[in-house]
C-alpha cells in the first residue's frame, strides 16, 4: 500500500511527552476529532505522519512512471486522453500530499531529497515493469483498486490536512479503477493476442497487488499504535482479505484467472481463502531490489537534476521581480 509501514521496525517513542497533554491528545483522537497543524501533538505522531504522508506522496509521483511508459503508445485517442488525465491526477495527488506533509514542518525539497537519497520509501508496486498495454489495465484495476481500499478509511484519519487530502483523492481514484477494469474488459473481449496479454498482466500484477497491503499483521509492529492514533483504520490482513473478496469475482466476470491455486470460496467465512504471499519477494522489493527499482529512481533523479536549471531560473526571476517591485514602491 502507498501508506503501509515499510520500515519494519518498531518505532521507539523516545521523547518523553507531557503526560497531561498526551492524555488530552489521545482522548481527542479516540473521540474521532481532527488534529490540526497548530494543535499540540506528540513527536512520535508527527514523525509517523510525516513518514506515512511523504511515502504516500512519493508513491503517487513514482507511480506516474510505469503508466507514463505507455502514454505515447496508447492504442487510440480516447485511451490516450484517459491515461494522460489519470497520470496527471496522480501528480496532483502527490501535490496535495506534499502540501499536507508540509503542515507538519518539513519542506517538499527535503522530502524529495530523502526520496532521491534512498532514505524515503514508496510503494513496492511501482518497482515492477509495464510490459504490454494490458499492464495499464491491470494497474488501474488492481493497484488503484487496492489504493482505494486503503484510502477510503483514511478520509477519517485523525490528522485534518491528511484526511482532507484523502477526500479529494478518493473522488478521483474510483475513476482510475474503472478505466483500468474497462481496459481489461475490452481486451478479454478481444482477440486471442489481447486475451493473452491481459492474462499475463494478471499473472504478473496479482501478487504484487496483494503485497501492497503490507506485511501480515503479526509482522507489522506499528499497527497497534497507528490504529490507536487513527492513522490507520483497518489492519493489513483485513484490507487484503477485502481486496481478494471484491476482486476475485471481477476477474471471473471477464474470464481472467486469478493466479492462485489455493484460491477458494469459503462459505463458512463468507470470504475467499487464498494462498500465501511470497514475503521474501516483498521484503526484497522493500529493500530496493524490485525488478525496475533502479530505473524508477534513476528516472526521478534525472528529471530532478535535469530540471534544476529551470527551477533556479524561476526562482531567480521571481526574486528579481520581487525586488523590482520593492524598489518601485
Amino acid at each position: 500500500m502507498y501508506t503501509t509501514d515499510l520500515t519494519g521496525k518498531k518505532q521507539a517513542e523516545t521523547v518523553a511527552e507531557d503526560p497531561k497533554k498526551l492524555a488530552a491528545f489521545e482522548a481527542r483522537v479516540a473521540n474521532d476529532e481532527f488534529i490540526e497543524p497548530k494543535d499540540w501533538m506528540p513527536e512520535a505522531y508527527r514523525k509517523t505522519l510525516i513518514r506515512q504522508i511523504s511515502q504516500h506522496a512519493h508513491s503517487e509521483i513514482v507511480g506516474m512512471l510505469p503508466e507514463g511508459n505507455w502514454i505515447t503508445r496508447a492504442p487510440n485517442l480516447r485511451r490516450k486522453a484517459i491515461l494522460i488525465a489519470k497520470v496527471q491526477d496522480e501528480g496532483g495527488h502527490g501535490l496535495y500530499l506534499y502540501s499536507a506533509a508540509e503542515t507538519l514542518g518539513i519542506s517538499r525539497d527535503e522530502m524529495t531529497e530523502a526520496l532521491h537519497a534512498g532514505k524515503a520509501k514508496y510503494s513496492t508496486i511501482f518497482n515492477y515493469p509495464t510490459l504490454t498495454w494490458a499492464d495499464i489495465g491491470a494497474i488501474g484495476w488492481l493497484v488503484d483498486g487496492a489504493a482505494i481500499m486503503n484510502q477510503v478509511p483514511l478520509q477519517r484519519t485523525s490528522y485534518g490536512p491528511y484526511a482532507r487530502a484523502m477526500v479529494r483523492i478518493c473522488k478521483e481514484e474510483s475513476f482510475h479503477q474503472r478505466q483500468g477494469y474497462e481496459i481489461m474488459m475490452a481486451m478479454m473481449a478481444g482477440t486471442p493476442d489481447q486475451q493473452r496479454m491481459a492474462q499475463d498482466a494478471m499473472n504478473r500484477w496479482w501478487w504484487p497487488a496483494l503485497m501492497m497491503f503490507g506485511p501480515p499483521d503479526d509482522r507489522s509492529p506499528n499497527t497497534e499504535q497507528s490504529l490507536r492514533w487513527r492513522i490507520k483504520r483497518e489492519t493489513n490482513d483485513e484490507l487484503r482479505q477485502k481486496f481478494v473478496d471484491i476482486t476475485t469475482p471481477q476477474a471471473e466476470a471477464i474470464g481472467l484467472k486469478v493466479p492462485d491455486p489455493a484460491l477458494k470460496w469459503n462459505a463458512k467465512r463468507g470470504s475467499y481463502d487464498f494462498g500465501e504471499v511470497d514475503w521474501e519477494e516483498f521484503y526484497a522489493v522493500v529493500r530496493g531490489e524490485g525488478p525496475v527499482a533502479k530505473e524508477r529512481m534513476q528516472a526521478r533523479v534525472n528529471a530532478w537534476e535535469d530540471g534544476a536549471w529551470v527551477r533556479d531560473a524561476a526562482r531567480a526571476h521571481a526574486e528579481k521581480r520581487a525586488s523590482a517591485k520593492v524598489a518601485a514602491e
Partner: protein
Amino acid sequence: MDALATSALRLGDDSLVLGQRLSEWCGHAPALEIDLSLANCALDLIGQATHFLGLAGELEGKVRDADTLAYRRDVMDFTNCLLVEQQNGDFAHTIARQFLFSNYQELLFAGLTASKHARFAEIAAKAVKEVAYHAKLASDWVVRLGDGTDESRTRMIAALDWMWRFSDELFVMDEVDAALGIDKAALRPAWDRRIDAALAEAALERPSPRRGVMGGRAGHHSEQLGHLLSEMQFLQRSYPGATW
C-alpha cells in the same frame, strides 16, 4: 480528400503531433507543477485532434474515423507543420516550440470562431480558450527563462534559434486554406507583435531572419516524425483490427 476535409486534417494533425510530443514529458518534467501543466496542454491538444480528425473523416465521406486517421496513416499523409514535430529537447526547446506555435494557433482559432463553416467554428470556439492558456503559459516561461539565470538565458536563446526556421511555414497560404476561408498570412503581423512583446519582456532578441524550412503540409517532414509515428501507432499496426 477535398480542400475542406484537408483543412480539418491539418488542424487535427498539428494538435495531435504536438499533444503527442508534450505527453512525452509526463512524469519527467523539471517540477511537479510543470508536469501537470504540460499534461494539461497535451490533453487539450489530444481533445482538439479528436474533434478535427473526426470532422476530417466525416467530410471525407465517413469511411475513416479519428482513430483511423491518427493511427493508420504514414508520414507522407501527415499534414502537420514541421514545428510541432520537433523533439522536446530540453525544457527551453519545448517552451520555444510551444511559444511560437500556441501564439499562432490562438490567432488562427480566434479567426475560425467566425468561420462560415459551422463545425470548424464550434470546435475553434472551445479550443481557442485552451490555446490562449497554452500561449500564456509558454510566453510566461519565455520571460522566466530569458530573465532568470545566465544558463536559462543561454538555453532559451539556443532553443528559439533552433525553432525559429519553422515559423514561416505557419503562415503559408494555399488553396486548402482559401477554401476554409482563413487568411493565415494575415495573422502574421499580430503574431509578430505578440512574439516581440514577450521577447522584449524577457530582454531577448528576436532571432535573425533566415530561410524558412517547409514541407509539412505536403507530407514532407523532418526525420523525427517517422519515429514519433512508429511509437504512437505501434499497437494499431501490430494488431490490426483489434479493439481496445
